[in-house]
């Protein structure tokens, strides 16, 4: 970081963005494009597009353990070892448990990527819009608080970010999953197409659609200007993509921001707290601990965006205490850290299909088909609140028999056999944010960077269990009717967090007495602090959330800059 000796003036910017992940990258792009001198603080190391993807062009045999993570590393990091993407080719992009401990009041698998780009390097890249059926959920069903925005508020911003990100998808015309600015969709398999037809014929309000994902299937000039080209279907995204075929902060927003000349990026900068000035009634900057030297420096700006990823955003705000805010910045309501939630990913269902055996797939697909939420969409109709979306993926089973030995075994290894189709789905269930689901700070324990160790208290409730049961029942019924066989359901029993969709704690709302942020993601109580990552979410719905964070961020920056110009903040 090495900015210690610079004068206060050198440490003063127009805007500070805390975090360089998917939402922080967007804040950086928007601020710098609008001409604001912007400091982006990232607690981890720098990861430059192309240059810092050490495994990206490795062949499978170049990995000493062919992808498997050595046991000694797994033993030291049991939490992150449960993440599907924590493999030999990408393990350098994940936080190992021991390096950054936290307290699990209930089991919580906290998956983190401390580096420039954060988890945007590692995300599963699925991008669906919310609709009013989602935004109106809490008000209709009586939980959390009413969202202060509706679809019409965010729709233009979805379009705005989608065009830049590059979203592949199909215009399906589904009311509860609005269409976006789509590049051509990725193809479906014969069985996915069959199931799509089957479902639309047999279920009035259920759909099977092409996955919507942040892959450049047909790059537009705006993508080529970013230096990104067509997705090459490598499906090695987690290593960082040399083609920029999928969206990440590293391949897209950060280099874009850098080109403006207005970006200053500080890696190894652990934000300790936001500085609040009682006299001015505003935040004036942030305190930063150098991750390496542990020295503390202050940086100043007119406006501060907190995009540290949901859990750490809560941590920073809880740790930002002052005379005015003894319980955390902007926490007049007392809700900071509370009403935390996630997505229920416990349910999986697999089956076989013995039809369409004359067809197969060719090449690799970076997405799968998708079943939008169909439960309780228009009105309450089950014994649980809300619903779930599901992935839907299929493929031909191929294998080489391992029976026998000698010439027989070798012949088998040279001749792949093809079996029937496998069919699989996983659920993405909405969970209800509750007051007791919260992030708190340990009163005594601190980490190496003088940050309080945080506690996470989050669990499944009765609604989640009922929803899981319904997912199994409904999917089993659909699978059975479609002629799939050997249907097996599995409750992974995974802890919250492994979905990597943690949300809330700094929720948006209309009323300052019950929420932290207004409809612009601006703190009710501190007008120049904004939170636009997962922490700002009032409820979770069922969509993969990143696209919404990006849209909220672009929208909030636009508002913040207009307010700055008017002298309002």
């Amino acid at each position, binding site marked *: 970081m090495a900015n210690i000796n610079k004068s206060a003036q050198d440490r003063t910017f127009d805007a500070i963005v805390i975090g360089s992940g998917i939402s922080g990258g967007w804040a950086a792009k928007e601020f710098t494009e609008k001409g604001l001198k912007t400091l982006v603080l990232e607690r981890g190391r720098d990861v430059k597009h192309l240059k810092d993807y050490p495994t990206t062009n490795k062949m499978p045999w170049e990995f000493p353990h062919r992808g498997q993570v050595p046991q000694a590393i797994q033993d030291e990091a049991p939490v992150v070892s449960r993440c599907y993407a924590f493999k030999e080719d990408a393990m350098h992009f994940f936080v190992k448990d021991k390096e950054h401990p936290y307290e699990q009041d209930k089991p919580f698998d906290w998956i983190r990527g401390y580096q420039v780009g954060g988890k945007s390097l590692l995300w599963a890249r699925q991008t669906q819009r919310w609709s009013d059926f989602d935004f109106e959920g809490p008000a209709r069903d009586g939980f959390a608080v009413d969202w202060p925005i509706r679809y019409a508020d965010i729709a233009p911003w979805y379009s705005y970010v989608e065009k830049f990100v590059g979203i592949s998808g199909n215009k399906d015309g589904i009311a509860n999953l609005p269409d976006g600015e789509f590049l051509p969709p990725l193809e479906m398999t014969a069985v996915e197409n069959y199931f799509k037809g089957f479902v639309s014929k047999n279920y009035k309000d259920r759909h099977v659609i092409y996955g919507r994902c942040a892959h450049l299937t047909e790059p537009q000039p705006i993508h080529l200007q970013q230096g990104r080209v067509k997705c*090459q*279907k490598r499906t090695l995204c987690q290593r960082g993509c040399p083609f920029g075929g999928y969206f990440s902060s590293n391949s897209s927003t950060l280099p874009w921001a850098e080109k403006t000349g207005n970006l200053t990026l500080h890696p190894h900068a652990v934000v300790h707290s936001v500085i609040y000035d009682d006299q001015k009634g505003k935040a004036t900057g942030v305190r930063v601990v150098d991750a390496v030297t542990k020295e503390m420096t202050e940086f100043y700006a007119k406006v501060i965006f907190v995009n540290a990823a949901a859990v750490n955003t809560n941590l920073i705000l809880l740790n930002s205490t002052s005379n005015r805010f003894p319980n955390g910045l902007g926490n007049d309501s007392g809700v900071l850290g509370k009403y935390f939630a996630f997505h229920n990913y416990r349910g999986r269902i697999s089956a076989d299909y013995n039809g369409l055996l004359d067809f197969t797939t060719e090449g690799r697909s970076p997405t799968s088909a998708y079943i939008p939420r169909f439960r309780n969409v228009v009105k309450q109709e089950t014994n649980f609140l809300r619903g779930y979306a599901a992935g839907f993926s299929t493929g031909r089973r191929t294998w080489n028999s391992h029976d026998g030995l000698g010439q027989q075994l070798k012949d088998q290894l040279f001749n792949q056999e093809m079996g029937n189709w496998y069919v699989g789905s996983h659920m993405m269930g909405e969970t209800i944010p509750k007051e007791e689901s919260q992030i708190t700070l340990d009163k005594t324990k601190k980490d190496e960077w003088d940050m309080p160790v945080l506690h996470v208290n989050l669990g499944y409730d009765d609604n989640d269990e009922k929803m899981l049961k319904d997912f199994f029942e409904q999917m089993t019924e659909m699978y059975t009717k479609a002629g799939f066989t050997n249907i097996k359901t599995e409750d992974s029993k995974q802890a919250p967090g492994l979905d990597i969709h943690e949300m809330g704690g700094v929720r948006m709302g209309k009323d300052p007495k019950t929420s932290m942020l207004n409809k612009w993601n601006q703190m009710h109580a501190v007008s120049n602090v904004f939170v636009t990552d997962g922490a700002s979410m009032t409820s979770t719905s069922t969509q993969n959330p990143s696209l919404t964070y990006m849209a909220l961020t672009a929208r909030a920056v636009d508002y913040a800059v207009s307010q700055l110009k008017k002298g309002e903040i």
Partner: protein
Amino acid sequence: MLVNRRTALKQVLVVSAGLALLPSCLRKPSPASISLKNIAVDAEGESMLAALADTLIPTTATPGAKDVKAHLFTLTMVDDCLRKEDQQKFMEGMKAFSDLCQKKNGHSFEKSSPGEREALLKELEAADAGKDAAASFYRSAKHFIITGYTNSEYYLTKVQVYELVPARYHGSVPVKPIPKRTA
């Protein structure tokens, strides 16, 4: 130099004592060709694994498992990727396998004839790996040898070609008959 009988005799004795000692000197384990952190496998164990790899997936007109060093991959995986108790099980099984071979064939696996090797492995194929230590080792080693072979540069460039950059995905294509290949 005049050598008297006594001295000559002494020298012969020293030499023969040395010879008597020699086999055990030779048996002093020389290390495996790769460095291992957790398991004690010496050159002898390594060559037994190599012989096992060569028996399972033999060198023919095309390279076999030993040629692609699948036996060394096996050692790496056992050393780095197995839990302690599974490493122990593997090592115990390896010894049981070696002892079984010695008992059945009167010599090591490496020195066994192709027929002897095959007979032994076929017996272990049929045995219960849950109960029999030698069979458990065999099952585990076979798994790693196959994984090492099918993930080798040779296999992924010449047999089942791995494409780093496929640049295509076709959701639905007709299944084409693939001509049978001789390994």
